[in-house]
């Protein structure tokens, strides 16, 4: 496989695509939101239980490409237990990483496993796939009613 392609589809991504974490419905979420990527028809429904500013539980449902599904799965693992403020900070850094704006000295380590998605920066058409779950998360946190679209 081509190295650039392997960078994009790392084993961790293929694994999360095949067996996504937190892929379920939360019956009575405190927050939820829908995201939609009209370009590829990706949809995500995100459920959150937020108590005292902390994400106690998070789950998602939907359909999408390997990148968007793995991104949602990784996000859910990463965010659980974090405060809203922390989640927003991680999102900002993640966004910088996938759009190639992260400066070299910046510690990519703080993004943990999310770093496997850094290959996306070489594929501008796929940035939306990787960021859909995150935009949906921010919408859910901000309690925006309308669905996110990445267009």
């Amino acid at each position, binding site marked *: 496989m081509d190295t650039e392609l392997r960078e994009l589809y790392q084993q961790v991504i293929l694994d999360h695509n095949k067996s996504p974490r937190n892929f379920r419905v939360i019956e009575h979420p405190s927050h939820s939101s829908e995201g939609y990527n009209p370009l590829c028809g990706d949809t995500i429904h995100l459920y959150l239980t937020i108590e005292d500013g902390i994400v106690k539980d998070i789950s998602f449902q939907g*359909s999408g490409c390997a990148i968007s599904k793995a991104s949602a799965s990784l996000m859910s693992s990463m965010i659980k237990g974090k405060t809203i403020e922390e989640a927003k900070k991680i999102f900002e850094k993640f966004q910088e990483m996938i759009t190639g704006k992260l400066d070299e000295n910046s510690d990519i380590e703080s993004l943990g496993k999310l770093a496997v998605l850094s290959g996306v920066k070489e*594929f501008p058409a796929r940035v939306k796939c990787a960021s859909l779950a995150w935009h949906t998360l921010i919408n859910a946190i901000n309690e925006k009613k309308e669905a996110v679209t990445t267009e």
Partner: protein
Amino acid sequence: METNLKTNTNEKVFDIEKIRNDFPILKQLVHNKPLCYLDNAATTQKPQIVIDTINNFYSTINSNIHRGVHSLSEKSTQAYENARAKIKDFINAKSDKEIIFTSGTTASINLVAQTFGRKYVSDGDEIIVTRMEHHSNIVPWQLLCDEKNAKLKVLQINNKGELLLDDLKDLISEKTKLITVVHVSNTLGTINPVKEIIKIAHQNNVPVLLDAAQSIQHIEIDVQELDCDFLAFSGHKIYGPTGIGILYGKENLLDKMPPFMGGGDMISKVTFEGTTFNELPFKFEAGTSNIAGAIGLGAAIDYVHSIGIKNIKEHETNLLNAATGAVKEIPGIKIIGNAKEKTSVLSFVIDNIHPHDIGTFLDFEGVAIRTGHHCTQPLMDFFKVPATSRASFAFYNTFNEVEQLTIALKKTIEVLS
């Protein structure tokens, strides 16, 4: 396989090596693999003669048309009007007046919606479309229906992706003002029985618009024989440039329709008391047209004509059959669109692999296909898929490329499933 390339069509006319040499873009590597361009339903590549014609226009006779008395303007006007005549002959229209240059299929359909539609559709009237329309043959009618409080009715399809023609008679009522149908589905490749549709429509005094964006490059079209009232297509899908397209309309209909856009060239006389409009087709060509585009389209039509639509169709059908056969053999692949009459479009889904991932993997094998909803979301809903992968073949494609596609698909499935 290579020996099959010169298919059983007339070998002299259909020399695939020679044809491929006419298309400079095809000779490149993508990710170090020979480009295998199978996104022809989105847009086709341009033969050198089209590129040269546009280049020559700008290098030698560029000037504005119709209003100049100088030599260059006369030459460019003549070239522009020659292109119109070529298109008239190509679809066998009665008169040049019936050939209107637009920017493409979308613009042509919107023109009809905003002129014919606005004039003849009113409160409670109905327009019939089909389940397999491109968004560009849905949304302009929805906008019109919203404005006029009219109703959009939909002719449904079966699981193979064929229209339920028998339902048409029941859909038509005395309120029906227009039936607007895609001739060939860009997503499924289905060739619709437009002749029958037109016959039924005319028995009920309803005019018919054909979206020929996906048929003009594959099927011989004779508008008089079909007896369609309007026909729309895009230059870029028939080996011509982008930004140019055609609306054909029967003269008596076009005559009665109000102008679309107002401006220069479409008028006869302008005063602040009132304006009289130019004759057909200029009434519908406001402003400076895409002159180079029109002339380029004329060159493309000449080129297609020199190969022959019949030869094109035959080779493309052979490619489709080869590809369909090969893809069917791959476990986990399901073909979407199994109509009896098809052009060379192969849409498919693969168990548990999203089309976008397929598209990216194929790109690394040099294979360019389209993935997504192909601007036909109601059709995606019918087949209950969010998106498909679509390989669409042109006459410059080869059996080797069918193999390149098949091998790339197998590799993709190996990694992703």
